[in-house]
């Protein structure tokens, strides 16, 4: 589904990704773990198409389509979703308005009919209910006055509504207490499907207790340096990243 080959990317002329290869197949959950500064968040921004992240070499394709040639909104319409580490607050744009604008923009981009408002409202309410997001929160400005946990739940709501093909979760566990972590993880698990892939970026193993990965990668110095099964996450939790930092630097 997602194929990344020899990806090099720089931020302000500083190379961050240095030849990253990754293949995510439909239905798989890949965890990417690694020390701070290894390039995990850069990878998520490069995939989503943020300005200032310059790809200098390599390719990224989603179901054969060259993602790097597309604008961020076009990537989203093709089925890429990035759950932000720090979801932004937008006062004055009601969450409901934002969700509707986003969904309809994607439907339009794919040449599909927009969803009529009543059907949209029903859909949002259903999905919001299961994530414990109230109607009152949906009327508020996007993420305005939301707690850290509420913001992350709101990200999962967007994911559930937009039904992407490939979801990238960037440190979704950061700033979450154990209860919020459970709600968010259940939301993600509910979206696991045969035709959907996940990249779960995390520094800690605890998120992976709730979202069981099929494959675990260790990222260091802008590359994948080791790949294994779920047991690799436990090994990292016990031994830390020190060995990888030293290896990659060597």
């Amino acid at each position, binding site marked *: 589904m997602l194929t990344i080959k020899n990806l090099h990317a720089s931020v302000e002329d500083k190379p961050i990704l240095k030849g990253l290869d990754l293949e995510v197949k439909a239905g798989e959950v890949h965890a990417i773990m690694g020390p701070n500064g290894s390039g995990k968040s850069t990878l998520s921004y490069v995939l989503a198409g943020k300005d200032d992240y310059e790809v200098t070499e390599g390719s990224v394709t989603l179901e054969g389509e060259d993602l790097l040639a597309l604008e961020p*909104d076009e990537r*989203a319409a093709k089925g890429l979703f990035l759950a932000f580490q720090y979801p932004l607050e937008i*006062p*004055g744009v009601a969450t409901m308005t934002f969700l509707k604008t986003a969904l309809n923009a994607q439907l339009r981009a794919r040449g599909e009919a927009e969803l009529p408002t009543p059907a949209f409202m029903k859909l949002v309410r259903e999905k919001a209910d299961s994530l414990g997001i109230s109607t009152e929160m949906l009327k508020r400005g996007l993420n305005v006055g939301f707690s850290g946990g509420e913001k992350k739940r709101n990200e999962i709501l967007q994911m559930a509504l*937009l039904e992407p093909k490939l979801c990238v979760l960037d440190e979704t566990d950061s700033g979450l207490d154990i209860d919020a972590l459970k709600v968010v993880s259940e939301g993600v698990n509910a979206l696991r499907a045969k035709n959907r892939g996940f990249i779960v970026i995390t520094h800690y193993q605890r998120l992976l207790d709730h979202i069981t990965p099929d494959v675990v990668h260790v990222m260091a110095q802008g590359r994948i340096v080791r790949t294994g099964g779920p047991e690799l996450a436990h090994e990292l939790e016990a031994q830390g990243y020190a060995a990888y930092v030293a290896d990659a630097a060597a």
Partner: protein
Amino acid sequence: MNAEVRPIRTAAESALAELFASAREDAPGGEAARRVRDDAFAAVASRGLPNKRVEDWKYTDLRALMREARPLADAPTAEEMAAARAMLPLAGFDAQRIVFVNGRLAADLSDVAGPEDGVSIAPLAVALASDAASALALKGVPNDNAAVALNTAFVADGLVVAVTDGAKPGRPIHVANVQTGDAHASYGRVLVSVGKEASVTLVESHVGDASPHQTNTLVGLDLADGAEATLVKLQDEGLGSLHLATLGARLGAKARLRTVALAVGGVAARQQIFLDFCGDKATADVTGVTLAGGRRHLDTTLVVDHTTLNCASRELFKSALDGEARSVFQGKIVVRPGAQKTDGKMMAQALLLSETAEANAKPELEIFADDVVCGHGATVGALDEDLLFYLKARGIPQAEAESLLVQAFVGEVLEGIENESLREALTARADRWLAERS
């Protein structure tokens, strides 16, 4: 203000002098009015049109913006009346509507059924006949200000609205102004007095065709003790037009004033607001949105004069600018020595949507009392790239993402309009501006 000697007149100044010489003979109001008009015009003629060396006009050089003086509008022809009918502003908004076409009261287009109990609406000529001097030389407004003085010199038609003590008419009063036909100059004046504990909603709208008209309007608002007034203005004149407008408001004790303005028209426009607190514990909430693209120039100039105890004023002005447009915000809060416990806050925010747009902000505080809470702020910036990326990452294209953020930015002001259909109409107008820019 600098009183400079300017022996050489510009073409516009010479034309204004000729226009005034012929207009003064037939202007309504008799001899008393004539004296006030003569003085007013002399104030402009002696100094000339204000230019950028005059502090108040530093960012809006009227002499440069007004190269020519348009002839005074004639009574509208049948064709112009038909054109006006087709472009009446805020057509779906339920109000007692009084329409002026090219500055003349258009009875055919107006709601002439009797106003609600406690409200009287009369042509300006009535006030000019009874007390011309006070209808022309208003209290609380700097009568030597060029825009005010020109209005005083040339105004021939307008309205006098009076709301008696305690009256609370349910329907808003809507004064709609349409400019159509050959390029002309049009002057209008609306004087509103709101009695004790009375309350009224007044709506002022301005539209016009593409001709380079020159309009000059003045609204005088006098709120008695405990009176409440809401004033909503839509300035949506044609994109060739020069619009000068003045609002002078006097607030009695415990009076409450709310104003919301949307300025989206004109090649150049200046809205002047003078607030005069005359009694204790009055409050004013003065807000506005300016949307401009192309090479347009929109100015808001505000003076809030606190002379009494325990009054509060809030000013919030926002502009979104595209192309090579320029906005000007000059706001001054004056707190006189006796005006203790004044609570004044002023904020001007500009959003630059292009590299070449320009926002000028000049907030000022002049405080002569020692027990007050006053503050001002001004921000100028572009749309937040991180917010745009967040929206785009959800599939929203650039133009639509920008529109959402601008809507949110100006929505903070427009949502202050309590009347739902009016709020929707002005929001829709702002949305149309956004749709046309992308």
